[in-house]
Structure formats: structure tokens, C-alpha cells
């Protein structure tokens, strides 16, 4: 009974995984049916291309900054929502709506909201908002990080909410008897107890951020001047826009290795299977 699923997954999941490695040794243009092989050429040109360090830098920058932006807020919101009351569950319901929108829809919306001529800033006449958000490199990366956070903080705060609800109440009661205040309780009990949740959530954020594509592509198309050209975008442009499937495949291989490496690293940090504790607190 496992056969249909196994076949389907092997054909379009495992075979392409091997295929991408094979194609990284080719000089396929994407336009022909035959694939010409060219040994290590694609790898050589990819690894010596200054575009690769740049794409890696952009990827890590977005990864690190979006982690920094999302984690503290998600923990804070998770702790807040974890305490029960009806209006907080209403909040949680509303928080979740951004996750339902497609990244294309979100990117289009923000592109229009931030338009220097027709967007919110221009219409309201707020100088602060009236900048060329997507036309200037650092600002564009900031926008990407903001939009990612806008979509994903609700999800991560839900994970943290689950984590917080696992903490034994007795710990708080004991701390209270010892005279600990709210802040003290947060830093001495809540945060250490959330260790595994933090690792789970961070793994998802970090590994997930490697594959950001839809959002960046629709929002900035990697621009301005490659400022937001992260690895997945770089792969797409090289492969499907300039017809260099070999180097694009090499980048895809790098993506897989990076993802695996980061997941293993974070798992080692946690010392526990990171796929646990996902369904808690729902």
C-alpha cells in the first residue's frame, strides 16, 4: 500500500535530487532536450563567480536579521497569548491571517503600500514612510525582513505559546513564594524552559529562510542592483533567465548542503529531535 506514494515521491522528489547533482556537471541551457555534459566547468565558474559570495552574504544577512527580528517578538507574543483569556484567543485568530495569503499577494500588497509616488507615505504625506523603499539596497533588505516577519511572527508565536503551556505551573508558584517578580520569572524560568522551543522555531526560521523565493522575486526581483539576490533567487535567474542550468544546479546543490548543515548544527545545539513538540498547544 506504500507503493503509490513511494513511486510518486521517488520520481519527483528523489530522482530530481540526484538529478540536480548530475546537472551541475552539465552545460545545459534549458532550451534543448539533450543535456551536454562538461565536467567540472559549472562548478569552477560558480565557485569563482563573485556573484556567489554576494548571494551567500545576502542570504545570511536576511537569515540572521529576520531571526533577530522575529525571535524576541515571537517569544513575547507567545508568552502573552499563552495566558488564557477570550480576547487573546481572538487576537491569535487575527494574527494568523497573514499566513493564509500567498507570498505573491503579500509582496504585491507591500510593493503598492510602499510605493514612493502612490503608496501610503505619499498619500498621507508622512515623510518617514515616503522613501524609495524598494529602490535602495539596505532599505529593500529591511523591507524583505519586515514582510517576512509580518507573515511568520504569528506562526512562531503560536509555537512559543505551545512551549509556554508546557512549563509546569509549580515552578512559577515556587518562584512567587521566593518573591520573584514578573521579569525575574521570565528570565529565570520561562526563557530557560523554552530552550527546545527556541531551537525548533529557529531551525524552521533559518532553514526556511534559505528557500525564500516567491516573496523576494515578486517584491524586488533580487534588486535593486542585486541587493536582495539571495541564493534561491540567484539560482532562478542564472538557470531560467540566463540559461545557465549547470551553474544554477551547482547553486541548488549548495542550497541543499547548507540546509542540511544548518539543520544538523541546530539539532546538535538542542541535543534533541527538533521535530518533536510541534503539535503542542494547539
Amino acid at each position, binding site marked *: 500500500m506504500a507503493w503509490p506514494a513511494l513511486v510518486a515521491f521517488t520520481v519527483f522528489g528523489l530522482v530530481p535530487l540526484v538529478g540536480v547533482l548530475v546537472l551541475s556537471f552539465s552545460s545545459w541551457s534549458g532550451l534543448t532536450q539533450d543535456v551536454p555534459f562538461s565536467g567540472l566547468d559549472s562548478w569552477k565558474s560558480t565557485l569563482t563567480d563573485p556573484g556567489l559570495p554576494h548571494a551567500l552574504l545576502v542570504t545570511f544577512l536576511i537569515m540572521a536579521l529576520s531571526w533577530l527580528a522575529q525571535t524576541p517578538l515571537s517569544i513575547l507574543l507567545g508568552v502573552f497569548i499563552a495566558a488564557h483569556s477570550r480576547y487573546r484567543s481572538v487576537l491569535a485568530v487575527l494574527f494568523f491571517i497573514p499566513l493564509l495569503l500567498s507570498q505573491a499577494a503579500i509582496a504585491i500588497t507591500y510593493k503598492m503600500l510602499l510605493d514612493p509616488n502612490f503608496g501610503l507615505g505619499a498619500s498621507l504625506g508622512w515623510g518617514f514612510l515616503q522613501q524609495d523603499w524598494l529602490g535602495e539596497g539596505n532599505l529593500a533588505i529591511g523591507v524583505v525582513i519586515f514582510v517576512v516577519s509580518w507573515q511568520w511572527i504569528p506562526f512562531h508565536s503560536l509555537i512559543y505559546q505551545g512551549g509556554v503551556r508546557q512549563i509546569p505551573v509549580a515552578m512559577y508558584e515556587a518562584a512567587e513564594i521566593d518573591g520573584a517578580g*514578573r521579569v525575574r520569572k521570565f528570565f529565570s524560568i520561562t526563557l530557560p524552559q523554552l530552550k527546545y522551543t527556541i531551537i525548533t522555531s529557529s531551525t524552521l526560521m533559518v532553514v526556511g529562510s534559505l528557500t525564500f523565493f516567491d516573496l523576494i522575486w515578486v517584491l524586488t526581483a533580487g534588486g535593486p542592483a542585486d541587493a536582495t539576490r539571495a541564493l534561491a533567487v540567484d539560482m532562478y535567474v542564472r538557470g531560467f533567465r540566463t540559461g545557465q542550468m549547470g551553474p544554477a544546479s551547482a547553486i541548488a546543490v549548495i542550497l541543499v548542503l547548507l540546509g542540511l548543515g544548518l539543520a544538523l548544527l541546530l539539532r546538535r545545539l538542542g541535543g534533541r529531535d527538533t521535530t518533536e513538540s510541534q503539535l503542542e498547544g494547539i
Partner: protein
Amino acid sequence: MTTTLDSRKRGQAAHIAPPTPRRRSKLGQYNWFGGTAGWLWLVIVMVPLYWIVITSFKLQADYFSTNPLVPPAKPTLENYRFVLENHFVRYFFNSVIVTVGAVGPAVVVSFMAAYAVVRGSAVSRFLRTVNAVFLMGLAIPLQAVIIPVYLMIIKLQMYDTLGAIILPSIAFAIPLSVLVLSNFIRDIPKELFESMRMDGATEWGTLWRLALPLTRPALVTVTIYQGLQVWNGFLLPLILTQSPEQRVLPLALSAFQGQYNINIPAVLASVVLTTLPILVLYVVGRRQLLSGLTAGFGK
């Protein structure tokens, strides 16, 4: 009379009852810091959504002359008419075909595989390996294999068809669906399976008559979650289709935005129309959808 009252109460309790008893409330004062952050975040989440909705009811001329955060004095459906007249219905049905065509088969084969893995992996090394393969599949990002998938679709002569989106979508829905469903099937007491076998039921019969009804909540969760993924999918349609006839909604949005860049209200009306089916689903099956999203860890 009593039965209706009873069942209504039970239904309500199932809906509202919090998963754990309230406890923080008795532990001291209101969390002002978290509360402020919570409300602030709500504003950040809601302002763009509010802006999308109110703007979609404004005439283009009014959009430029009125405060963007004030609802239109005379709401108009003009933008919706415009969008619907610009092939929206075709794109919508393309999305429906792709979503149903991918999620239906994916859930059925995943359910069968999950059952086999749970029931058979204790005795069969092969099924243990199969399970490991699916678990490994969770780590494969779609982006990484898109180039070979593109090549395969060309070789299969399926480029620029809806089937080209459907086939890889099925494959990529399988690992997570198997994981969630097998976790659920594993919780079914062994005695139930044994008594089914004593009664002479085949594995196939046990699958449909015992496992299926007991797994229904997980099946709904998986279906909704994968449906959301496929409905919002962008990369596969972008790479595997080309002509406007095969366009699905996320791609149509992007194309529409390029074409009618200046007509902000119309583009936002198309965003609303694209999201509406999901919002309806969210309102109906919120709990299922939330657990599905967290089970899927989002990506």
C-alpha cells in the same frame, strides 16, 4: 429535548474549552508588556489587510485624492467587475483544478502509505526504509530540485500544462502528509486492529473501515494544509507553465500587477478575490487549519 441540549453543550465545549486550565491569571498581575506588544502587533497585522479591503472598493480616481486609510464614501464594485472581466474566472478554475488534482491523490496515497508504514514497519525492513525515505523527504526543498523537475516535465512533453504543476505538487505533499497521518494512525489502539483481523477483515478492509474513520481529523488537517500550499504555490507554475491559458492565481496576480501597475484598487480587488476562498475556509475550519499549519512547520 435533553439530548439536543446535551449534544449542543458538548459541541460547544469541544469548541471553546481551552486545552489547558487557565493558570496565569491567578499568578499575579496583568502582563502589560506582552499586552502592549500584542495590541501593537495586531495593528501592524491589520492595517495592510484593512487597506487592501477598503482600497479595493474605491474608484481609481478617488484612491489618489482621498486619505488611503479612510473607507470610501461611495464603495464601488467597479474594480471587482474589472478583475472578473479580465479572465479571473479562468485563473480561478485553473487554481481549483491544480489544487484538487494535487491534494486529492496526494492525501489518498499518503494515507495508504501511512497505514502501511505503521502496520507493517514492525515486521518489514522494507517498510521501515520507506518510512525513513519519507522522513528524509521533509528536508528536500522544492527550490533545490526544480531544475531537474523542469527537465523531466519537458521530457514528458507536459510543459505548459496544468498537469505539470500537479505531478510535482503531489510528490512534495507526500512526506509531510505521511508523517502527520502515520503519527495519528499509530495512536489507534492495537486491539482494534486485532479484533478486525479476528473478524476476518482484510488489510484493505481495515484501512477503509477502521483507520479511515478514526483518522478523519488528521485527514482534514492534512487536506487543508496541503490545499493551502498548492493554492498559494508560485514557483512550480512560474517555471512549468507559460501561457495565459494555464495561469494559476498567484501567477495571475503577479502578471496582473505588472499589467495594471497604476490601477492599485483593481490589483487589490484581485488580491481579495484570490484570498477569499482561503478566508472562508479559515472561518469554517480554523482549528483544523491552525493545527495543520503548525504540524507542517510552515514550510
